[in-house]
């Protein structure tokens, strides 16, 4: 089937290998999440019980509605916990393989660093570093392309938000040096 139209081809050289070993099964994660939710439900339920779950002269107390929701959440997580323990199907399902986990971490860790940097250096410096660093180190894109994209994107964001629309972003020492 030949046609005159041009094809678009994009490759993904760092794609996760299909035969990578599992890190965790869905069952393990499901059990952990259910336990966490159960703990959350207990904490919130206790807090609401302290606030007051009864009735006073004005109707239900503030803790009434959320307390019963915590009970529902707790019940559903408990059911989920048991269901996950008994589920054979989930035990066979892969939550994430090692290669996939590596790729996910390759995004998550820079995002985490970006948030940290935003706190100390301001959003624009952090975003420049994130884009340039990510494109260069994770995407293996040419240095000049990475730097150019990062500068252009950060500048457009700065002009759009801080100048044109007056939406003020967190700033750090660099912006202070320029008087913003």
């Amino acid at each position, binding site marked *: 089937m030949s046609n005159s139209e041009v094809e678009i081809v*994009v*490759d993904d050289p760092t*794609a996760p290998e299909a035969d990578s070993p599992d890190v965790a099964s869905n069952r393990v994660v499901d059990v952990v999440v259910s336990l966490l939710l159960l703990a959350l439900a207990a904490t919130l339920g206790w807090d609401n019980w302290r606030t007051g779950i009864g009735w006073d002269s004005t*109707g239900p107390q503030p803790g009434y509605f959320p307390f019963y929701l915590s009970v529902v959440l707790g019940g559903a997580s408990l059911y989920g916990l048991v269901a996950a323990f008994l589920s054979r199907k989930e035990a066979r399902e892969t939550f994430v393989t090692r290669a996939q986990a590596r790729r996910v971490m390759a995004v998550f860790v820079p995002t985490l660093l970006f948030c940290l940097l935003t706190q100390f250096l301001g959003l624009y410096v952090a*975003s420049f570093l*994130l884009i340039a660093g*990510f494109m260069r180190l994770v995407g293996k894109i040419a240095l000049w392309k990475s730097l150019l994209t990062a500068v252009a994107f950060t500048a457009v964001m700065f002009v759009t*938000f801080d100048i044109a629309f007056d939406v003020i*972003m967190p700033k750090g020492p660099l912006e202070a040096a320029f008087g913003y």
Partner: protein
Amino acid sequence: MEAFGLLLHGFAVLLTWKTLVLMMVGLVLGIFVGVLPGLGGPNGVAILLPLTFTMDPTSAIVMLSCIYWGALFGGAITSILFNIPGEAWSVATTFDGYPMAQQGRAAEALTAAFTSSFIGSLVAVLLITFLAPLISSFALKFGPPEFFAVYLLTFCSFVGLGREAKHKTVISMSLGLLLAGVGMDTVSGQLRMTFGSAELLRGINFLVAVIGLFGISEILLTMEERLALRGHAAAISLRVVLSVWKDLPKYWVTLLRSSFIGCWLGITPGGAIAASFMGYNLAKRFAKDPDSFGKGRIEGVFAPETAAHASGTSALLPMLALGIPGSGTAAILLGGLMVWGLNPGPLLFVEHKDFVWGLIASMYLGNVVGLILVLTTVPIFASILRVPFAAVAPMIVVSCAIGAYAIQNAMFDIWLMLGFGVVGYVFKKIGIPLAPFTLALVLGSRAEDAFRLSMIGSGGDMKVFWSNGLVGSITTLAILLLFWPVLDKAFGSLGRLWRPAKVAG
């Protein structure tokens, strides 16, 4: 014909250069977001929401809804040219759309997809135009018990009719309702679930949660996949467009059927995904030669696209008329409305006529402009996919952070967004649905207020939810829907008991 006059007024509000430009910008951004892998309707609207914070509400909602239409159009491009459905509801479009592209009929398939999207949306907008004012004027008579019953109905239908494991839907929903209650209690002024933290005093902002859940988590999920792709480039010529349009009347049954299915499923929560598959399957069942489906039949593109768009659009009907969103994206739009201090629900039609009719008029205009825009610019958007994901991902992260920060000018919200990103990633992987969470978070405080007001009114008597025919039937329906799977099974086995007996007799 009061609606018609108001609609004309809405068009008058819209037809300024500023609004038209915003519309184009919204559509382009929307198509862009729809084409990019790992992003789609709800994510796009959530990420781009902060752009609209400084606009007046009408311009803002026009731009946001155009982003939404754009994303819907964009999804079709990748499904047909690359066999990659940008959204779950585009999956059915790939069945016949991609084979058509392989046969060199990509332009035809794209024209069919865009045109049928347009028709589906148009039918749904017509429905909104005439039905929404009626429903909202009816809902003006609602008191707190009626509203609580309607909220209950929404929540219960998610649990009862959703495809996910029931306990996971319940988890997602109760978590959303709980988080909606964090912070200052609106009735008593007391603090709840803040654990002495000053940051939690403000409460957990709905949009921050949504940006994390849909934006950040989607990037994490996308990175897991193999991102290589190959597909066909296509330009649409006027000749192809006209020839497809000339054949359109032949498929009127399919188009009408799919529009109807879409509108119906869009109003009930559950939505576009089911609609697109149902539209496709019914078209196949009623066809004279069902075997030709899946091999590049144009009807196989018409049917799911019409249904998906009709349902995506009609999901806005309950949001406008009752303040209850019919889909995840509608919930995010609703969150946007609240940022601008507009309280969605029946009063909107009375207090903010300009706004509502401007929005409805923008649905008509946005779809017409969108259709022309996508038909002329497909080659450009298809080539966006050449941009490596390593360049797109950090930009999306930055946009998400800007969005999360801009809502309340709080650094804490950026951390919250990151947290929700991880939660969203894990939840999606173990099958806890996010739509009920979103809906519960946005409706939570209003549902609680409605409940407490009804309780105060009745002196704590639960019978208030059955106090008259209207509220009683809504509440009963809600409870029936909650136990629908059980009832369905019970009646199913009753039916089995009964059938062999009949055969024997």
